[in-house]
């Protein structure tokens, strides 16, 4: 915990080494957060970089300690996402294009995941509208607490809980349908 506090302080002070740790820790989660939103590989990478640039400017004014860092990072990502929605009224990228993604990275786990399974998961999650999709991603992919999700999405905790419950039920139905289909 002390190391986390130190990291938080160093980020506020603008130390490059602390930002290197921040990037290493959050570039994957941020990329997933954006990619699951629109399924556009390049746009997700752009938004991730933009979020980090925004974080450099806004982290010195972050209130609270290290326990708020993750929520702060994703709240910034959420602002970038909302701004992008306003600027680009594009249609989502078709699933076929998503499945043609090149090697997403050097991770062995990523290489092991087949395109078909990934496409099915993305297809299922993209059936949800925002903020339900963001709630599910943050909760079940990034393991956020209810309070953190409430902070990121600026909604009451009760609403987050009901979104999680409803989303889980719907997701299971969708996945079961996909399993039944040939």
């Amino acid at each position, binding site marked *: 915990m002390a190391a986390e506090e130190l990291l938080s302080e160093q980020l506020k002070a*603008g130390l*490059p080494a602390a930002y290197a740790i921040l990037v290493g820790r959050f570039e994957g989660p941020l*990329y*997933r957060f954006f990619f699951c939103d629109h399924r556009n590989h390049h746009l997700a990478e752009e938004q991730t970089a933009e979020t980090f640039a925004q974080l450099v400017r806004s982290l010195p004014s972050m209130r609270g300690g290290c326990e708020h860092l993750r929520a702060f990072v994703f709240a910034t990502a959420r602002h970038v996402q909302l701004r992008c929605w306003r600027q680009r009224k594009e249609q989502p990228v078709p699933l076929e294009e998503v499945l043609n993604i090149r090697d997403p990275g050097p991770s062995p786990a990523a290489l092991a995941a087949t395109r078909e399974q990934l496409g099915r998961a993305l297809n299922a999650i993209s059936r949800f509208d925002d903020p339900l999709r963001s709630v599910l991603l943050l909760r*079940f*992919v990034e393991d956020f607490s209810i309070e953190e999700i409430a902070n990121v999405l600026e909604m009451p905790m009760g609403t987050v809980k009901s979104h999680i419950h409803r989303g*889980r039920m719907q997701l299971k139905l969708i996945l079961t349908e996909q*399993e039944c289909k040939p």
Partner: protein
Amino acid sequence: MNDSDDPLEESSDESLRNDPLLVETFSHLRRLEPSLDARLRNRQVVVEELERLQVARRKQVLPWWGRTIAVPVPLAACLVVVAGLMLFSFFHDRQASSGVQIAAPDQPVQRSAHMQSAGAVAATRAVDAHPVVEYYETETYICGIGRLNSESGYFIREENQ
């Protein structure tokens, strides 16, 4: 977290743990990672942004005599008026205590001062043989504020021949 005792959430998380379909679905999404190029670009963006921030901070650091503070307009206006009144009061008191009064040249303030000298009294006696009643009025103004002080009365001069 205070949400751990919520039955709704507990059932949700428990179902997720026990449901292989959901676990598998989310595990695929967890494996999504950005490309190596994107990782490098993220680091480059952060370094550039930090440098830009450093330059901006250096420009903002000023010596104490070059720094400014923000003061609300009503407060600034009040301060200016109060300072003006204090200055006026200071000079007004100085003039009063030194015996110099603000008045028109033909008004009795000067005249009364003039009459205090014995030589002047003697000279007047030689000229005026009858009582003289004169009205005088002394007013003090300040530009933009208005009349500050007013004094009026009758000056009666009666002398015996």
